[in-house]
């Protein structure tokens, strides 16, 4: 008897949970709470106004990765949320997940809700064809941002992406420009297979195999994790291997590596024993550059909202976007030339 009651209670709570997070149009939905305890949360910015009121608003559905994934994502989400507001003429709903299948589910839901635009930063490059075909059939414009996907170009209207390979190349060129006699690099990689990892690793691998005085002392994935990076660098130090460059594929991992250097009394930064390189331009990382504790930080531009806004305006006015694929301009910062102004402008 007791068990039955409990089961019913549990079932009731679960259904409630489903209702709360599944239906983006439910008037009672208060986004933030749902976001806290489910991995896919759809929230309604416009708090589901009466249908008549949203008539002149452009309805956009935004599918993104989990805002907690990294500083990059947090900045990206904040940028999108600031742009797609009612004041700017948008009725936006957001869905977050790091899992492709959950993202696809959210996309289907948004297509069923009849959004005008579907904005997508896909967790995985594959598996999007059928959903995008559905969207096209329903007359929904699809715009990719941040990450590209393996689908036919005709299935989306535009894509605003970062060129990760270019980011890697800029960084490696900068490193080559330092004119060291020999390069002994500890290469700390991101999650294997992600676009950022492939692009940033590719450039370094190519250079290291082409030049005789470039050597990769250690190449390991720390999966964007600072603690893992710390352990990996610690193990190289314990082994007694010599190195003079740390090439970490994001700022967090560079920070972990530096913690290991500090513990072992190895100096790092401008004019010191070890060159430290990171990516993403977190504000705290740029401050390390400013203090000359690190040497280089490559930008990965998370601010796509204004580009997307421009493209939507163009499509709304009846013409096609000038460029189908927009690649964002991205910089690399050198500790010797960075200014406080750069930190304030480009730090995320």
């Amino acid at each position: 008897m007791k068990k039955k009651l409990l089961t019913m209670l549990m079932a009731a709570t679960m259904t409630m949970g489903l209702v709360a997070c599944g239906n983006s149009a439910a008037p009672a939905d208060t986004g933030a709470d749902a976001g806290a305890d489910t991995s896919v949360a759809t929230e309604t910015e416009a708090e589901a106004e009466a249908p008549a009121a949203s008539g002149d608003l452009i309805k956009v559905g935004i599918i993104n990765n989990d805002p907690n994934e990294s500083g990059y994502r947090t900045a990206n989400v904040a940028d999108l949320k600031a742009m797609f507001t009612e004041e700017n003429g948008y009725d936006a709903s957001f869905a977050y997940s790091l899992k492709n299948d959950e993202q696809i589910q959210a996309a289907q839901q948004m297509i069923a809700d009849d959004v005008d635009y579907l904005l997508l930063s896909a967790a995985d490059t594959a598996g999007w064809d059928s959903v995008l075909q559905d969207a096209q059939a329903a007359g929904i414009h699809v715009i990719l941002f941040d990450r590209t996907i393996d689908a036919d170009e005709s299935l989306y209207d535009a894509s605003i992406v970062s060129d990760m390979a270019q980011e890697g190349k800029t960084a490696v060129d900068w490193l080559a420009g330092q004119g060291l006699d020999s390069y002994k690099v500890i290469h700390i990689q991101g999650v294997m297979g992600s676009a950022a990892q492939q692009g940033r690793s590719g450039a370094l691998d190519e250079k290291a195999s082409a030049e005789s005085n470039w050597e990769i002392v250690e190449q390991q994935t720390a999966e964007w994790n600072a603690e893992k990076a710390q352990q990996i660098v610690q193990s190289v130090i314990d082994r007694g291997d010599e190195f003079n460059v740390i090439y970490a594929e994001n700022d967090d991992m560079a920070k972990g590596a530096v913690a290991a250097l500090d513990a072992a009394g190895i100096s790092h930064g401008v004019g010191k024993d070890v060159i430290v390189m990171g990516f993403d331009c977190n504000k705290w990382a740029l401050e390390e550059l400013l203090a000359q504790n690190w040497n280089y930080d490559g930008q990965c531009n998370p601010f796509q909202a204004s580009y997307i806004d421009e493209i939507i305006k163009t499509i709304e006015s009846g013409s096609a976007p000038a460029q189908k694929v927009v690649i964002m301009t991205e910089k690399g910062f050198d500790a010797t030339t960075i200014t406080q102004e750069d930190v304030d402008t480009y730090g995320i």
Partner: protein
Amino acid sequence: MSKTNKNGSFWHRLISNQMFIPLLALVLLAVINLITDPGFFRITPTVNNAGNTVLSGYLITILDYGSELAILAIGMTLVTAASGGQDISVGATIAIAGSAMLHVLCGGVARPTEIATPVIVAFLVACLVGILCGLFNGALVAIFKIQPMIATLILFTAGRSIAAWINNNELPIVPDPKFGYFGGFIPGIPIPTTVFIAAACIIVIALVLKFTNLGLYTQAVGINEKSSRLNGINPTVIKILAFVILGLCVAVAALIKVSRLSTINYSVIAKDIEMDAILAVALGGNALSGGKFNIWASILGAYVIQFLTTTLYKFQVSSDALAAYKAVVVIVLVVFSAPTVREYMSKLGKKLGAKKEVA
């Protein structure tokens, strides 16, 4: 003849001792490392960038990075023994406790110029949060009789989002270098602080087990809940207590984790640490179905796991392959603890003993 008898019983005692498997693994790893690189055990003093003389070397690294796991192994052993299940929310609750600690330390600001409250206050808040998480898990398991793995799945799934929500998705950075002492070195002391923290936790639990009936009661509940109730033990309280103790261990581990880098990343902090903690308990020869337990074997198991991790890093094994090696350890453990294999082993032991006697 009496000598062989003694030998036989010694062999038998050794095999049946719970510390045997983790010790064997430790010796095996040590020997492998000694053969491949005699310098493995060298410990050298160096001056770190803060200007302190500190010890460094593989052994120090193992002791340093193994501490969180050893602390968690204490709580996980108790939870396993009392409830016959495991808590898989450990990593997520470390994120929650760490996030709460940073929230208090930084006064809710992402980039403060100085810490808002003393570290001890922030740590007590983290302990409180750890205890609350423990109470939540414990209540689900002990009162609502939900399978521990299912009950803790709730915080496992939601924990990291809750941690992010506590700090409003910001990643606060503690400005005070003194906060880094807990996961690093205190000036003037050449041994990592984490070693002392782990030692303190081990001493506390040793005293608790010696001077209270916690150990006995936990075993009684784990072996047979009904009969322990008939003997006047309240299984509900014991189970919840086990989860609360694990919650405290989580708070201490969170202090170390957060202090190592003076910041937090909700999605990756202490990732998959619960699996290592459970593996430590299994490696210690404790039955994962509850009942009798040996905390020292679990703690040793934790250091063995770190020993293995450090060894694999030394051999430049790709870090995403580490899990595969741990899986091999699990397979060996499962095979060794299977009843049929045990029976065969003891038969073999007896046969060997008999042969010797004949000779």
